[in-house]
């Protein structure tokens, strides 16, 4: 295995996989177009809504509370993203040299970072931001 900083060759096969992943369903859809009958009418194409005539637009407005989930998610997902590079350095020699309260500096800093975020989570829970409506 080569030890280049950016090993492009690992990512080259992904292009082929992407194309292959697209070809399979497109081929299936093309085959269906050829072999299956097609006689559409209005009744057939109308959508299902409990057996009744659909009422109003289907794209209803969702409660704004729902989007608070998304906002909290962004915060915590970025936290997780910061943890990934941390995995590589936390046990390295350099980090072992500086000790804070008996643990190495990388671990201590990550603990602080996570603790602050957990406080934020507690606040969000207390404010009922994470309540399903």
């Amino acid at each position, binding site marked *: *295995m080569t030890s280049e900083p950016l*090993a492009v*060759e*690992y*990512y*080259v*096969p*992904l*292009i*082929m*996989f*992407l*194309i*292959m*992943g*697209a070809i*399979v*369903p497109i081929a*299936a*859809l093309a*085959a*269906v177009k050829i*072999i*299956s*009958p*097609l*006689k*559409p009418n209005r009744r*057939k*194409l*109308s*959508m*299902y*809504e409990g057996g009744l005539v659909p009422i109003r637009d*289907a*794209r*209803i407005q*969702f409660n704004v509370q*729902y989007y608070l*989930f998304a906002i909290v*998610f962004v915060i*915590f*997902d970025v*936290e*997780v993203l910061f*943890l*990934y590079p*941390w*995995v*590589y350095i*936390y*046990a390295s020699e350099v980090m072992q040299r500086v000790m804070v309260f008996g643990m190495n500096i990388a*671990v201590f800093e990550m603990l602080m970072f*996570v603790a602050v975020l*957990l406080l934020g*989570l507690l606040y969000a*829970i207390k404010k009922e931001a*994470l*309540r*399903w409506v």
Partner: protein
Amino acid sequence: MDLSAIIEPVSSWIDQEPLIFALIIGLIGAAIISGVINVGAMAVVWMDRKVMGDVQRRFGPARVGSRWGLLQLGADAIKLFTKEDSIPIGADKQVYVWAPIVASITTMLVAAALPFGALNIGGKEYPLVVANMDISAFYVEAALSVMTVAIFMAGFSSNNKYSLLGAFRGMARMIAYEVPMGVCVIAVAVMAHSLNLVEIVNSQSLWYAFAQPLGFLIFTVALMTDLGRVPFDQSEAEEEIIAGYTTEYGGIRWGLLYFQEYINMLLGSILLVLLFLGGWNGPNIPLLPPISPMIWFALKLIIVLEFLIWTRASLVRFRIDQVTDLGWKWMLPLSIVNLAWAAAVGLYFA
């Protein structure tokens, strides 16, 4: 073994020409793995039906293709392929058509970086993986969650209230469990000192399921929600919202979405085996040294799949608010606790 005489020059050539090798392995790998995961998912569908039948004291498929019902899926495929292909009025046509394709691309991209076992040739293990990247655990976990985008595309474009509800539920559920799942992957990487799935497997002299039981539990639950298996299938809860995001899908388009879910289940189970159950590690089986890692791998994989099907048969569906609550208020703090445990053990004992 004579095989190692062939492999040595090949591997030295690989080191010299990595880019050409990547192109070749990409082409061959894409063809082979596409076949493997599709056949594998067919086996999973068959297993799902048979085990569900067993649990519910009935036979399951038993007519088409001998008394084991082996060709039932073929019969289903014929039915789906000859069915009329209709797109509902008012649907967002482009998005509606692309949703199953995006799902299929997602599963293929996940499969690209997953090791599908290993072969033991001449005392050396060769993992069967196409893109053996340094961050494959991160990559696989990220690619798995793109499936939610496909689900949202399908639900949002259908112009149906039930579909939309399913899409919103799917998104909220994924959001709630993505973070604990990511933290669990990090906890594993902290113990293994690597994000490469092959190295993670090789570092498991003690399975991580035993080294960090809490993480194993959280990851299993998060995986089940990610795969949308009962008790976490709120996005297609048929008793509540007809069929959720697939309500307006029919024929082969529905078939594709359904099948991608099973492929996803297969790949997710493989990920679970690799991260927590020691992958292909196991004692060498006499007489069959080259494929003994494969046997262990297949054995663990079947047990995990059986477990997933069994939970589906025995548990009831949670409400969506219970699921999001469980994810945010229990899983997330507990996964952080598990990370602290993993960091402590990884620093001082490993």
